[in-house]
């Protein structure tokens, strides 16, 4: 009898493991099909790979966007996922960056991306050792001849989000939820505050940092506090932590469908995260998202490098003009949607033609406010 119980326990463990395993694997299988077989001459193909930071390739944000870009590059060149096309490696901890970058170097990929500022020291070190290998880094600058650095003008996207928030708020209280106080997020904050100030100088912007990019529960707690203090629009630049903001906004909307609770997403168009179904009708709590097109940048740089124009040792900055940042479509449910859209277009033009220089740091924000 006891033996049978043990057998049962063992099969339960195995079953649970199998189900979990299947969950993890699902996405990959899909990707492995698709473009296979189209690639003509694999040996001449320009192969590209990337290393994710600890967020992983399915973080609905930064890393995922980079991987989309790589896939788009592969599709255009008729390559398939794998060692002779394009591929990615995930990092479980900060210590894995160097190991993963070295592994990809060993697999002879022509270009290797490091996604995120966390990878800066590892790329800097390995690029010095493997001088024949080309690297690219997103969100940080490594000054070496075999490294191309990709930077974004996040402040421009955040500025447009700020314009939207400034016009959408009714209580004149707006929230900003930051991941960690690092230069990238500082650019988001400065741009956002400047945007709000430009269209609604009376609005009060509450700033709070969660000190983590992967703690949805911390994001939810901060959002809850902000909403209950009268804030009606919150913009997040906090990666996975921001998912807590969406949960809180959806919950509040569900409890009281009349209440105006709005959130603004970041990096990719996060509209899908804001859907609430009340009495059979769909509502959405997300006004728009400040887009950071890591995918465009990654694809763009890969294509350049494949054509033999690898911008080694240079910093390429992607802003509104280069289509590297932008704003997602505005939510239909907003009463003054037309007004917001008009204003956003107006400021877009002003930024593009240089009439406005969006502040990218606290110091620049101060001089911006003074004007």
């Amino acid at each position, binding site marked *: 009898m006891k033996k049978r119980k*043990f057998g049962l*326990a063992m099969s339960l*463990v*195995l079953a649970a*493991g*199998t189900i*979990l*395993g*299947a*969950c*993890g*694997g699902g996405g*990959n*299988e899909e990707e*492995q099909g698709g473009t296979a077989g189209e690639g003509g001459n694999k040996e001449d193909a320009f192969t590209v790979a990337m290393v994710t930071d*600890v967020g992983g390739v399915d973080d609905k944000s930064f890393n995922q966007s980079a991987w989309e870009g790589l896939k788009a590059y592969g599709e255009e060149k008729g390559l398939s996922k794998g*060692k002779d096309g394009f*591929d990615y*490696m*995930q*990092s*479980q*901890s*900060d*210590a*894995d960056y*160097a*190991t*993963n970058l*070295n*592994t*990809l170097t*060993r*697999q002879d990929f022509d270009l290797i991306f490091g996604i995120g*500022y*966390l990878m800066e*020291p590892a790329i800097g070190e*390995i690029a010095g*050792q*493997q001088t024949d290998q080309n690297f690219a880094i997103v969100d940080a600058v490594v000054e070496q001849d075999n490294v191309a650095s990709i930077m974004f003008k996040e402040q421009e996207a955040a500025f447009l989000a700020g314009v939207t928030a400034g016009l959408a708020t009714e209580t004149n209280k707006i929230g900003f939820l930051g*991941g*960690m*106080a*690092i*230069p990238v997020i500082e650019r988001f904050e400065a741009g956002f505050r400047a945007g709000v100030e430009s269209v609604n100088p009376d609005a009060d912007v509450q700033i709070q940092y969660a*000190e*983590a*990019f*992967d*703690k949805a529960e911390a994001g939810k707690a901060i959002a809850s506090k902000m909403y209950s203090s009268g804030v009606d629009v919150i913009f997040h630049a906090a990666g996975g932590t921001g998912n807590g903001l969406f949960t809180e906004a959806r919950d509040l909307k569900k409890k009281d469908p009349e209440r105006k609770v709005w959130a603004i997403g970041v990096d990719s168009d996060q509209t899908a995260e804001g859907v609430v179904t009340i009495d059979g009708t769909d509502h959405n709590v997300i006004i728009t998202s400040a887009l950071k097109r890591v995918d465009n940048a990654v694809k763009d740089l890969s294509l350049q490098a494949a054509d033999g124009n690898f911008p080694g040792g240079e910093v390429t900055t992607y802003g509104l003009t280069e289509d590297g940042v932008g704003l997602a479509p505005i939510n239909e449910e907003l009463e003054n949607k037309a007004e917001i859209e008009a204003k956003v277009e107006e400021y877009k033009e002003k930024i593009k033609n240089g009439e406005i220089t969006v502040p990218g740091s606290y110091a620049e924000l101060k001089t911006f406010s003074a004007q």
Partner: protein
Amino acid sequence: MSSRFTNILIPVIAVFLGVLAGTIIMLVSGYNPIAGYSALWNGAFGDIYYIGEVVRQFTPYILAGLAVAFAFRTGLFNIGVEGQLIVGWLAAVWVGVSFEELPKIIHLPLAVLAAAAAGALWGFIPGFLKAKFRVHEVIVTIMLNYVALHVTNSIIRNVITDGKERTPNVAESASLRSPFFESITDYSRLHWGILIALACAIIMWFLLEKTTRGFELRAVGYNQHASHYAGMNVNTNIILSMVISGAFAGLAGAMEALGTFGFASIKGGFTGVGFDGIAVALLGGNTAIGVVLAALLFGGLKIGALNMPLESGVPNELVDIIIALIIFFVASSYIIRWFIERISKKGVK
């Protein structure tokens, strides 16, 4: 069957069962287990570079495992290894960046000792609270993990640097990095810390098994009341155990600080090494030699796992599941023990 043999057999069977379960899961999910495990092997030992990286990962695992095991032997459950590791990391880097002109023979030991002292201090707090007020060490150490994480982040941002997200690299004179190891392992991050870690394993074995103090520590672990009755000072031994455990954890931090990374950066979450140390200690049966072997296994799994998705298409998550299953089987060693006893009884009949 001798109990010593059983003690060795149980972790081995646990690992075997974990691997077996992993094979079945891979088969059912449609992956090739042979390709998966050979990718795991190649990723850990297939190239001199990977061997270097495995040893690099192995180093902090030994120390974290020793820290947990040492406290365990005195009947204490130190979940705070993670926090002690983080403060040790910071202390080593702080000393490493603060002095520029010191000769290596002074600077390096100073940085390593600072890490041990910081970890010891972080271990002293729960030890003291446990000894004086009977506050449970599990609760205090868990909370101190968070305190350590956020305090070190704040110090890195506001004290050591001026609002930056990472410190400058430690001075060459405080680095454990070795150009010699780098050249023989094709630029892996293998460093001299491995010698410190192995020395600590010997120290722990000697301290616990060969000294009076070690006997007292173990006696307190077995039975506090009996030890007290026998005239031992239970409170002192509890504090001492947590301090030594914390010092080991702090040294694990020094390995990361002076060897692997060479700097400290603001962390959004825990490193995980301290928590893995619990599994390492458990698998190693809380003995010095067991911890070293378990740390090698974990180091190999951790580094090899990175290679599995690329070479065989098996997702990282599955490797995590296999590791989790191994721990599960170790933790449920009672079942295995029960089985062994049953089988050996049958043999007697």
